[in-house]
């Protein structure tokens, strides 16, 4: 995240030094190591609070930019469309402020809705604000987001720190987000419940060679409160009942990513491979694998393609049609056993003739997704449920 969003790794021209030497006694070394860390952070925080020192490191803030996009998701009876805009502007080369506005106009006739309710339309809007502060080789990021639907409001604040070490070859990041949801139900005034979320994340990006980058990300999420849907029904002995989910959930995820410059094989191309492992205390385990290629077709045109595979096992209390009364029961298909296969492509064209220091790009991306459920029955046909979805995005972005 830090390496890419902040554009730091691989683009800097630093003269950082490697760590040197070890002492024979590990304990004294550990104290020295701790003292070094403490003094470094004290200096860092002192500088941050004083705000007086010029950035001497080589970490860089994201480019000033403006992006506008229109996105479409269409599949499984759900169609979500809408625009989104992003504006980012730096101040005195030390602080970068950003704002995003995102709209989802949803027309929902999903299998849950057509089975137990009536199709509906609603709009979700999301607003994000962020501030990135460059301090030497470190970027401190503060963010706020708020998402509003007629029956759901979510808001959260986040703090992230990313710092470059080891001569700029390594970027270490960590962050925390605290968010709160208010859950409502149509035709029922007020909020029926709420949910709290804590997200802790850490990342490491490493340059391994002039042509090879790897990164490792880990994230732990804890939830407490209402974690289901007031509209969704479960089936017990064939009868529809309101789902009953636990009020806490805790998950862990780890992701490994590798990006190689493959120009030696195919001119001006790269290859990306990712794998994520996920598990939580609802007993959901998931594997996500994705590979992608990118290539300059001509100086102003970049083409990309990807293949993604996702699979998961069901939650402990998931049942397509429970044959016993249990404390918790859900027929949420996102908690069932299923897999997803996706293929996608993206084209980015850089507009010619722009003034020096500015760029204008037009990007279009399409993705086809197949959802195949193993133990979620389509009650209309009596067969395992499956559907395909298309995702289309068009983006105009300018850096200045």
């Amino acid at each position, binding site marked *: *995240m830090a*390496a890419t969003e902040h554009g730091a790794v*691989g683009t*800097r*021209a630093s003269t*950082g030094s490697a760590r*040197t030497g*070890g*002492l024979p006694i*590990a304990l004294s*070394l*550990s104290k020295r*190591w*701790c003292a070094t860390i403490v003094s470094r952070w004290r200096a860092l925080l002192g500088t941050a609070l004083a705000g007086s020192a010029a950035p001497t490191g*080589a970490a860089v803030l994201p480019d000033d930019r403006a*992006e506008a996009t229109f*996105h479409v998701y269409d599949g499984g009876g759900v169609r979500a469309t809408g625009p*989104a805009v992003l504006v980012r502007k730096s101040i005195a080369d030390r602080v970068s402020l950003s704002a995003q506005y*995102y709209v989802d106009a949803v027309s929902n006739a999903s299998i849950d809705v057509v089975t137990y309710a009536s199709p509906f339309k609603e709009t979700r809007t*999301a607003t994000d604000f962020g501030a990135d502060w460059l301090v030497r080789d470190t970027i401190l990021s503060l*963010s706020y*987001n708020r*998402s509003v639907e007629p029956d*759901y409001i*979510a808001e*959260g604040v*986040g703090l992230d720190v990313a710092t470059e070490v080891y001569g700029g*070859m390594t970027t270490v990041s960590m962050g925390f987000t605290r*968010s709160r949801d208010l*859950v409502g139900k149509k035709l029922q005034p007020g909020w029926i419940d709420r949910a709290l979320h804590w*997200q802790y994340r850490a990342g490491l990006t490493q*340059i391994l*060679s*002039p042509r090879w*980058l790897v*990164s490792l*990300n*880990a*994230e*732990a999420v804890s939830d407490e409160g209402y974690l289901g849907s*007031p509209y969704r029904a479960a089936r017990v002995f064939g009868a529809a009942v309101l789902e009953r989910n636990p009020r806490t959930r805790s*998950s862990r995820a*780890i992701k490994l*990513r590798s990006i190689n*410059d493959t120009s030696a094989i195919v001119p001006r191309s*790269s290859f990306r491979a990712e794998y994520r492992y*996920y598990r939580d205390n609802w007993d959901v385990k*998931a594997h996500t694998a994705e590979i992608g290629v990118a290539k300059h077709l001509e100086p102003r045109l*970049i083409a990309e393609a990807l293949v993604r595979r*996702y699979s998961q096992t069901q*939650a402990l209390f998931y049942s397509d049609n429970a044959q016993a009364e249990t404390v918790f029961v859900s027929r949420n298909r*996102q*908690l069932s056993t299923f897999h997803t296969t996706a293929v996608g492509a*993206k084209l*980015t064209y850089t507009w010619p003739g722009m003034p020096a220091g500015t760029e204008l790009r037009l*990007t279009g991306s399409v993705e086809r997704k197949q959802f195949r459920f193993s133990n979620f029955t389509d009650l209309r046909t009596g067969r395992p449920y499956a559907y395909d*979805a298309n*995702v289309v*995005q068009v983006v105009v*972005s300018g850096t200045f």
Partner: protein
Amino acid sequence: MRATLLIIASTALLGGCVTLPEPWVKPYERERLSDPIMLVSRHALIDKHREHIHTVREGARGATGVQGGGCGCN
């Protein structure tokens, strides 16, 4: 949890004993890495929208390197 603490403590204790080599990829050797095709993400909005779709339609979450909020799943 105990294993995690042990790993952290061991890393802290042994960290000072290990002599790392000089950074072997010099700044002037990183031209390839700064090419747009080597970036994980070039479009924040596209990535966020894609991540939102995955979070809403799938059971797993986290460790994506993309942050977002909201539900959109009711």
